[in-house]
Structure formats: C-alpha cells, structure tokens
C-alpha cells in the first residue's frame, strides 16, 4: 500500500530525514520508534502532506499513486489519516460539523452520496461508545477546552468515523494515562483489518503492548537503523535507544 524510497526531507535548511526506505502492505501494523529529534513526527507529517517540510529527494508511492503529487485533502480523500501529536483547537466549528464536512468531502470525492443525518448519528453513537466519549463533547468546538487525553481520543474518534485505508498515528500515546491508553488502543484495534494498514509513531513502548505491531522500525537521526518484528520493541524497552545507536546501521532482524 505504501512504498517509501530514499526519502529525504528538510525543514528550515536542516536535513531531518536522510534517506528513508519503508514498505507497508495492507493488513500490516508498523511501529516507528526512536529518540526525540529522530524525525518520527516529520515522517508522519510528510505522509499527510504538511508543506512546512521540503522533500528534497526520494519518492512515496501510495496505492500505486505518487503521493508527493497529491494535496493534503486529496490524500485524505484517498484514505490517509493522520492522528496529530498536538491537535489544534478550532473555536467556532463544532466537532459534529467538522466530522460531517470531512465525511461528505471524502464521499463526494468518490462520487458517493452525502451522509444523511440519521446515518451520521448512528455512526457517531457507535464509535463514541467504543471510545467512551460523551455526547456533549460533540457539540463543542473542535478540541476547545479538551484535555490532552481528550484531544487524542478525539483524533481516534475521527479516525474511526472516516475509516481510512492508511492510519498514521503520531505519538498518540504520549501523555496518556493507562486507561486512556487502553481506550485508544481498543479504538485502533477496531480498525485493523486486511484492507487497512496502520503506522504507529511512538516514543514509548507501552502502547505496543495493546496494539501489537507486525514490524518495528527504529528511526535515529533521520535514518531507519533497525527493523524487526515486535520483539524489537521489548528489546528497546529493556535496553533503551542508545543501545541501538551503538549498533551498525541498517541491520534488520
């Protein structure tokens, strides 16, 4: 589904990603871990199309299309969803409205009918229950006055409503207590299926106890230094990131 080849990305004149190769197939869950400043968030944002980052080299192939040629809204309509690390507040636009506008935009893109009120509310109730989100959160402006945990849960709620093909979670677990973490994990696991792929960008290993990845990649200073199965996450948990930095680059297990 996703093929990243030799991706190099800069921001403000500094090179952040120094040649990333990554291949994600349908049905797979990949985790990208790494120390602060390794470029994890940058990778996530570049996949979503944030233009504050400059792609200097490489290509990204998504479902057979050149992703780098697509606008952010196009990417979203084609099934990419980014759960932000720091979701922004949008006073004046309610959560309900925001979701409806997004759903309809995506439906329009596929030549489908716009969602009707009843179908929408049905979908909303279903997903809200899963994530323990209360009714009144919906009427409030997007993320306004939400706690950190509420914002992250709202991201996952949006994800479940939009049913993406490729979900990219940017440090969704950071700053969450164990209960919120479990709820978020439930939400993400509910999305797992053969037609979808998930990329989890995380600094901490803890989330991966609940969302068990198929592959774990470690990003360090803009490069993937190690790729392996889920055991790698446990190894990192034990030994820390600095252990890997001492290893030769490019070793895959």
């Amino acid at each position, binding site marked *: 589904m996703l093929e990243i080849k030799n991706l190099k990305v800069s921001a403000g004149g500094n090179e952040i990603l120094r040649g990333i190769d990554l291949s994600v197939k349908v049905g797979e869950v990949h985790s990208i871990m790494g120390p602060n400043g390794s470029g994890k968030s940058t990778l996530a944002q570049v996949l979503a199309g944030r233009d504050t980052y400059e792609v200097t080299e490489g290509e990204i192939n998504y479902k057979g299309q050149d992703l780098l040629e697509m606008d952010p809204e196009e*990417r979203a309509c084609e099934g990419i*969803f980014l759960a932000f690390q720091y979701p922004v507040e949008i006073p004046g636009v309610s959560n309900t409205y925001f979701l409806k506008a997004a759903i309809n935009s995506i439906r329009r893109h596929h030549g489908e009918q716009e969602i009707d009120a009843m179908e929408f509310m049905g979908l909303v109730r279903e997903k809200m229950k899963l994530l323990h989100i209360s009714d009144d959160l919906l009427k409030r402006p997007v993320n306004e006055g939400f706690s950190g945990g509420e914002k992250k849960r709202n991201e996952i709620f949006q994800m479940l409503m939009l049913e993406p093909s490729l979900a990219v979670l940017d440090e969704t677990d950071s700053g969450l207590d164990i209960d919120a973490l479990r709820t978020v994990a439930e939400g993400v696991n509910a999305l797992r299926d053969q037609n979808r792929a998930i990329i989890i960008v995380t600094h901490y290993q803890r989330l991966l106890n609940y969302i068990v990845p198929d592959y774990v990649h470690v990003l360090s200073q803009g490069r993937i230094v190690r790729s392996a199965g889920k055991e790698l996450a446990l190894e990192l948990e034990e030994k820390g990131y600095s252990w890997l930095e001492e290893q030769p680059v490019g070793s895959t297990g």
Partner: protein
Amino acid sequence: MSIALKERDLYLADFVDLQKERETLDPTWLKELRKNAMQVFTRQGYPTLKDEHWRFTNVSPIARTDFTLAPLGQIDAGSLASLDFSDLGIPRMVFVNGRLAPEFCTGLDRLEGVRVLSLSQAIESGEPLLERYYGRCADYADHAFSALNLAFSSEGAFIHVAKGAVVEVPLHLLHIQTAAVDPYRVHPRTLLVSEESSEFTFLESFLGMGDNVYLCSPVTEAVVGDNSKIDHYRLQRESRQAFHMGVNQVQQGRDSSYVSCGIDLGATLTRNDLSCVLNGEGGWAGLNGLYLLNQKQHVDNFTTLRHGAAHCNSREMFKGILDDSARGIFRGRIIVDKGAQKTDSKQTNQNLLLSDNAFVNTKPQLEIYADDVKCTHGATIGQLDETALFYFRSRGIHQTAARSLLVYAFASEVLETLNVAPLKEALISYLTEWLPKGDLVRELYQK
C-alpha cells in the same frame, strides 16, 4: 479649519433654510441647540489628519464634496423587500432619506411597555424627556459630525422604555438611503431612555439602495436607567460609495447593562464613535463589533469606555476581516476614574487579513486613575492559522472551503453576541455570499 469658505457658505445657507423650515416646529430649546451646534461646526470644520482622534481616517473626500440635503426618497414595497436585512420579522420603523415612511412601519403595536415615536411626533407633542436628554448626551463640542447632526437632524426615533417593562419583542429602526444622482447628506437621530429595571433590545440598520455617494451621519443617544438592560445592535450596509460617520453616546445608571454590537459591511469610508459612560456602581458594558471589508473600504472604530464608578465590568470585542486593500482602524480608549475601584475591564481587537494589501492599525489606550483594578487588553493582526487550515485539509476538506470555514468561525464569536435570531441568520447568509465556497458555511450554521 478644513472647510473652504465656499463650502462653509453652502452649509450655512442650508442651515438658514432649515431654520426657516423649522421655525414653527422646533421649541426654543431645540432652536438654541441647533444654533450652538452649527456654530461649533462652522468654527471647527471637519477634522484633519492632524487631529489626535482622526489621525488614520482622512475625511477630506467628505470635506471636498458638495452635498445637497437629502432628496425625497420614494421606494416601493417590492424594492424594499428585496433589500437584505430589511425584513427581519420584527416590529419596524422605517425612514427613507431621513424622513419617516409610515407606509412601511409595521408591528409597532406589538411593543408593550415602550413608547416609540418619530422625533417629529415627539417634538410636536412636547415630550419632556426630549428637552431633558436630546443633545445633552452626545458631546458635540469636539466632534464635527455630532455637531452637524445636531444642527441639521430633523427626524429619527424617540424610544422610552417604561419602568420595570421587560419588552420581549425587539425593535428595528431601518434607515434607508436611496440612489440619487447628486451627493446628498442625511442625519438620522435616535434618543433612547430606559427607566429603572426595564429591558429592551433594538437594532438600527443603515442600508443603501444604490451605489451612489452620500453622507449618512447618524447620532444615537442612550440613557440607560438604573438596573435596566439594553441590547443595541447596529448594522451598517450603506452604498459602496457612501460615507458613514456615526456617533453613539451611552450614559449608564447603576447596576445597568448595556450590550452593543456594531456590524460594518458597506460604505467606502466609515467612522464609528462609541462612547459609553458607566456612571453608577455595578454596571456592565459589553461592546462588540465586526467589520467585513474588501476592495478599498475603510472602517475606523473609535471607542471610549469610561468607568466612572466602582465595581463595574466591561468587555470589548472587536473583530475585523479584511481582504484586498481594505483598511481597519481601531482605537479603544478606556478611562478608569479615581474612584472606580474594583473595575474589571477587558478589551480585544482581532484582525484577520486575507490579502497582502489589507491594512490594520490598532491601539488600545488605557488611562487608569484608580489603583485596585483589573484591566487587560490585547490586539492581534494575523492571517488564517496554518495549523488549523492543515487540520481541515488533512481531513479531506478542500482548501477554499477550509479557509471560508475558518473565517466564519472567526466571525461567529461576534455574531453569537446577537440575540435577535433573524438578524444573526441574515448575517450568516451575507457572510456565506461574501466568502468563496460559502455554501459549506451555511450548512455549518444549519447543522
């Protein structure tokens, strides 16, 4: 002195004509007031850029224009109905080119607990409140447009809300300026007096029917009684070539509440002077404004909020959305008198620039003479939040629509202060026309 001799004579000649016309109509006190006002005006003339309070608004286009007095405007019901904002389903008093149009006044019988008269009716009946308050609230000694209005105003509205009356139904004062070949000037005037513990909402709208040049310089005086609650909305949508120079003067009694919201959509040059004095303890003043500008429109909001007594609260929220080469000026003066302890005041002016050539100058001006007060102020001038924009796009919402939604969201904070639902809806409709991909904004409101 910025009126050339020739123009001054024109105004003087008009004044002499007016005096003759009103010889048998005006009581002595009013004649005196007019004379004094005219003297002030001819002595001072229009302000120049050298005047402290007019540094950013150049009124020389007004000073240079020969205005006739407003011609008799004739409009038919059809053209009135097709004018945006003209029919909000609430009681309405209509003035066309400064003259009462009784054929279009509707629903005034629905108003209970409040007397609504045209100024000429009030003058004719010798209304005592008129002599007491008319021309006494709005300071004309230092303000050319206020003086000009006091000298020439011959029609408007007089509103008296009875003690304890809670008037559920709002009143719409509709001032229409018709199209004409020659530039003309019109000076509508409103006086509102609310007695103790009364509650009332009224809207003044100024609508131009054409694209012509005219000067509309209205003055509204409001005497808000102790413990009374007045909501005052002002909607300006003059012709795109018109000049709108408005003055609002509010005197508040103790424990009173005055909430205003001024919306500026039209005219080429607008200046709104809003002065609010909290005379008694426990008062509340909420001053809100929204200006939506494009092309070369210029709006200058000059507010003076005076805390003249202790334990009063005030909030000012003015927002501007500017596109093309529009210009927005905001001056918010807050004066806290020595005895006004426990004052709680907050002022914000936020401006959204949608183009590179839009211009804003904003300045709060705090004069605080008491020592136990809380006064905060803030101003922003910026563009749409890129992070918010990206958030929308990352969810599949296209850029143009996202921009419009964010602009709407920005404006909605001010629109939410309006308690007259049909007015709010009409404004949202207007906003959706003004914005590209505005239909999505309409859906937003209808959720």
